[in-house]
């Protein structure tokens, strides 16, 4: 059952990411990215991290993507024209040869690495699966990583101020 769920979510994530990158309408890209985030949230639930899954939906799909959507709507972003000329025209002949050699090296390396994969299984005991309790995350976050937490709050403040100043209309 878990295997079916994993492949389902993985397929949705990969296909929607491909379409985000591949198709031309920016509005559809944003909606497809939201679908990808949903699939990843499902994968997090499979990995015993329900809090992170819900946080992903709230922050990424619920807030950041709304920001993207607003910008796309307000700028009335047009459908993108095709890339200027084929990419190979800018590379030149030697560039294509070097690129072909590098791609072949990468392909051989990938095949070699994948053939030497050892199966690694997830632990099953309650000690491991109980790690996703929100209380434990909270405790670790506010004790061991308290400095990073406070620094993140200053980062968000800086981002808010920066975004407001940058997007202001000049008077």
């Amino acid at each position: 059952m878990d295997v079916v769920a994993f492949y389902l979510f993985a397929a949705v994530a990969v296909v929607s990411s491909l379409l985000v990158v591949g198709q031309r309408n920016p509005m559809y890209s944003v909606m497809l990215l939201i679908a990808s985030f949903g699939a990843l949230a499902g994968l997090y639930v499979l990995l015993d991290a329900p809090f992170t899954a819900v946080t992903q939906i709230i922050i990424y799909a619920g807030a950041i993507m709304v920001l993207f959507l607003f910008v796309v709507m307000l700028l009335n972003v047009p459908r993108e024209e095709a890339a200027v000329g084929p990419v190979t025209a800018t590379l030149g002949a030697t560039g294509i040869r070097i690129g072909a050699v590098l791609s072949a090296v990468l392909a051989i390396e990938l095949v070699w690495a994948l053939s030497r994969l050892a199966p690694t299984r997830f632990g099953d005991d309650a000690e491991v699966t109980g790690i996703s309790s929100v209380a434990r995350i909270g405790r670790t976050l506010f004790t061991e990583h308290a400095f990073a937490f406070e620094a993140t709050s200053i980062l968000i403040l800086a981002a808010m101020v920066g975004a407001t100043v940058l997007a202001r209309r000049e008077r």
Partner: protein
Amino acid sequence: MTPTIVAHLGLIFVIFNMLVLSAAFMVWLERKVCAYIQDRVGPNRVGFEGALQPFADVIKLMFKEELRPQAADRLLFVIAPIISACAAFAAFSVVPFGTETTLFGLLEDPIPLQVTDVNVAVLVVFAIASMGVYGIVLAGWSSNSKYSLLGGLRSSAQMISYELSYALALAAVIMLAGSLSLREIVMDQDGYWWGVIPRWYIFLQPLGFLIYMIAGVAETNRAPFDFPEAEQELVAGYHTEYSSMSFALFFLAEYVNMVTVSAVAVNLYLGGWLGPFLPDWLQWVYFLAKVFLLLFFYVWMRWTLPRYRYDQLMEFGWKWLLPAAVLNLFATAALVLWLE
């Protein structure tokens, strides 16, 4: 197909129908209460006291022509009401409304009266509610009409602004209960103080309850925060160009959202299904009564209070409600520390 699976499927069926019927009931309640507030009688032709009026409305809507503006983005125009309705129904799936029951001994293990029992239920409700923004934004954009676009933008800005206060009110309740599961929050409100006052969180958190209800009303785009769909201002806001079943889906989504917000408020602040005198397997009656009370307040507010202007609405959300929610959180933290 073990009996447990059949029981779960049956429960899902019952809950779904309950939500749809409650939306129909809300249509009737709204028109009757509106009528009596305005010193008239309201629908009284169809069925006893107009009780079948919602069904007549649905049949009328089903037979209307399905229009679509020519320059509308076809895919997004069709998907927007679907997203709204799906988010509204999905948010109710983690709300419990009764104790565990064995259906009079037919099952070996008791099943809880909710669709699923996740231990981050409060956050799931919040997450799915924040997905409901997309239905409105996409409806506004894809209709390719200036009223729709303005209504969609304003409505989504309003919803994401009030989500912050909503989340802070939730955080205060989570601090009191020590758990994110709605069932555990309700069970924490069991018992009485001095034998007579029930241990509901509304007595510990009056400001929190007020903040939650105000943010909930703003989240569901109901008066006095319904500027984005005000008839006098924006024709009909983001659902101007919709007709027939798409329009019905938006309406369904709005009423089911109201029911969900009221149900979560009852679970968080009013003790859920707990109450005196009734046996365990009938306590969902208390839940229905409390939700009905909150829904009546919703309708009462709509026909009594004037509408907020859009900038007044945003100012209220950011300058008054958010600081109040933060203060409430501090006060609750102090209370929790003091009580330990």
